[in-house]
């Protein structure tokens, strides 16, 4: 039997324990470092619970851009995937295609924006060609994603051009905020 330095010694069973089996206090340092996984698991659980609460099956329907700040509203409906007219303080786009400058539009005498109307008619014709075999009818839905500081002068021209091109169901894209307590919540 080996000769040991006199001092506190642990029994055979306790020597196998990680808590007590590290040797007497002041003994040799262990080469292995144990990582405590408990805080990591706790953090992961909280993140998963938060992300599940925020999960949306519909996903992002509109890509928000930095140059367009949407107005807020409480009594909103769910956004649908359809053609989007994006209007910043300076430019008008259909999806990602630039159409016209806001300053040029305001200087026009007529309500109509010819470039916008032509583009929307093209989109409508493409839709009808694509869905000719399926029998799916063109619904005339369109989303307008406009900066909140625009004047109604610009908006009325865009709405008029969309209506002339056959898009009668106009939807304003807005940031939904929770309604006041006691008021019915937004419908999907």
């Amino acid at each position, binding site marked *: 039997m080996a000769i040991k330095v006199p001092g506190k010694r642990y029994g055979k069973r306790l020597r*196998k324990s990680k808590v007590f089996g590290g040797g007497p206090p002041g003994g040799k340092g262990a080469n292995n470092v*144990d*990582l405590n996984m408990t805080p990591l698991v706790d953090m992961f659980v909280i993140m998963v619970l938060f992300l599940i609460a925020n999960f949306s099956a519909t996903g992002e329907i509109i890509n928000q851009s930095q140059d367009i700040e949407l107005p807020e509203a409480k009594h909103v*409906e769910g956004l649908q995937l359809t053609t989007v007219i994006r209007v910043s303080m300076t430019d008008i786009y259909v999806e990602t295609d630039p159409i016209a400058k806001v300053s040029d539009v305001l200087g026009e005498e007529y309500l109509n924006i010819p470039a916008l109307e032509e583009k929307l008619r093209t989109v409508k014709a493409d839709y009808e060609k694509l869905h000719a075999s399926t029998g799916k009818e063109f619904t005339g839905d369109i989303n307008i994603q406009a900066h909140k500081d625009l004047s109604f002068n610009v908006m009325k021209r865009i709405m008029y051009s969309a209506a002339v091109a056959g898009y009668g169901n106009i*939807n*304003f*894209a807005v*940031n939904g905020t929770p309604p006041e307590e006691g008021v019915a919540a937004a419908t999907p």
Partner: protein
Amino acid sequence: MASMDVGPQKGSKKPLDVNINVIPIIDLMAVIISFLLLTAVWTQVGRLQVAQAGGAGEPSEEAVKTTPVTLRLTEKEASLSVGAVAPEVFPLSRNPDSKLLDLTGLTGRLREVKTQLPEQDTITIQTEDTVRYEDLVHVIDASRGAGLKSVSVQATAG
């Protein structure tokens, strides 16, 4: 570090420590979190459906004959007319903190209109050119909150 307990050896006593293997749960959490981060939607964007009253476009269904409710909106005030009754004028002030219009009086009156005319669902908002889009959206939102879900927007002459 988590480790596996191989169980008691023959002739030895049961060990005191119980080791739980947390590696699989960490792997599962990492995969779930990656998936949820990729599919997360951080902003709730909704829509306010409006119709264009009196404008060009394809003819819509015949509207149910209801009392015409018209709201004329300018930068300073809103005039609400219900049927043939003389319009009521609501001066519009702006909240200094949020910069939004204070529509308390107008919203209350719209709720009264809805209470008096339960079948009334439509309102036409005649808007001046200088009105901000955000203010128009705020008024549309207030109309929908008062129960007038079918909102038409029209430009004023001049």
